[in-house]
């Protein structure tokens, strides 16, 4: 996939931003989609800044919270383009036109080319230009 997102240019990457086990992509209108790759099949949770059908959510003052089996996983603020972990143990992630913020680190104006994952975020930190972790569902369905 070739994509410009959060002021980064991703060329020939399979997943531009992997937040834990969730792929985050941004369309040309600037709307974010989040796809859970932890299962056998890719499961969209957020499509175009809104909850995907059959994804359990709860509206909040900030936007909405995604739930699974009654447990709050993370919240999404469509205005700020910010993903905040509630129970995933991941650093906060924000995509803006000037950069991509992961926790307190900001990436801006990079070209990331030829990797499985452009920016990989884990509970322990992040990596720029990483291989695709094993066991993830395929992003394209």
């Amino acid at each position: 996939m070739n994509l410009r997102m959060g002021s980064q240019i991703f060329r020939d990457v399979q997943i531009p931003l992997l937040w834990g086990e969730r792929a985050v992509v941004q369309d040309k209108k600037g709307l974010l989609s989040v796809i859970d790759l932890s299962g056998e099949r890719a499961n969209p949770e957020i499509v175009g800044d809104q909850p995907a059908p059959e994804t359990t959510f709860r509206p909040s003052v900030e936007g909405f919270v995604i739930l699974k089996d009654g447990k709050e996983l993370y919240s999404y603020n469509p205005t700020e383009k910010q993903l905040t972990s509630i129970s995933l143990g991941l650093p906060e992630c924000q995509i803006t036109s000037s950069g991509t913020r992961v926790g307190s680190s900001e990436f801006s104006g990079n070209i990331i080319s030829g990797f499985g994952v452009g920016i990989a975020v884990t509970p322990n930190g992040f990596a720029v230009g990483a291989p695709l972790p094993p066991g993830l569902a395929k992003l394209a369905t």
Partner: protein
Amino acid sequence: MHIIVNSDVIHSGRPVATGLPKHIEQFCREAQSVGCVIVIPRTALLENDRHQERLVEEAIVKVENATQTLRDWGVELPQIQAKDVVRKKDFVEALSEAGIRVEVEDASLEDFQDAERRASLHLSPQPPNTKTDEMRDLVIWKIALRLAKKHGKAILVSRDVVHSHDRGAAEANAAGLLRADSLDEALDLLGRESPSAKLVHSILETIWPALLKAELPVPRQVAIRRVLKPDFTSTASGRANANFGFVIDGPEGEFAGRANVRQVASDCVYVALRDVTVNEAPWKNGQVELKFAGELPQVAASLGERLSDLEEIIGRQK
């Protein structure tokens, strides 16, 4: 009502001089409209100030880098001092500008001593089997209890498990301390409708005529006293399905249960009520099922419109 806030609900991702996050501003306006005061424990304020200082330092570096980049490309610029451009702003002042009264509460010696005792002896409210006992969290807990006792009631808004665990429930109840783990839940406690409660109310307006027609013990007008643990899904066309507990003051008394409301066809709504009680006694067999013509509220755009843009990006991988 005094609302004590922990740092984890007031942290912002950008310097506060650029503006308060919208959800905090909105919360302040809602709370102010019912006469609330926001209390920030000094402990939480110090932590937030440190967080803000770091954000300001990062912003200064960004401005310096941006200025240098422009100069590298031959753009002429006046002398810019990044430290003068990136303004600092006092967080309490920013909250006050949202129209709400804000107080900063210092911990007393007794607060510190009691927090020390609880931390050392691993006492409530710290959940059992936790590895560390955070003094900071315990100081905030003591401050919240003290203020609740002083004013008769108070709300502590905190995502920290130390403040929300069941272990602290008895002590909180005895002090009149209500606990919320989000600004939304705090709004519910204040009787102000959170976004979830507003959506439930909108759904109830759609199904209420059917409930009346089925002769359920509900008032003539839509009125719900409590909404419990609501969650929602959307259909492909963007209609809201909902699952929630309810407590309604009906003509026969307190009418309660759990509701599942679904858009099962484009013009057909299904309602299932479970564990239905009136004044805590089972009502009929405790279950109700209804189907009627109607449309639930729209909570999202149709999936087709949103999906085409996403497929355009990821579909290229095929």
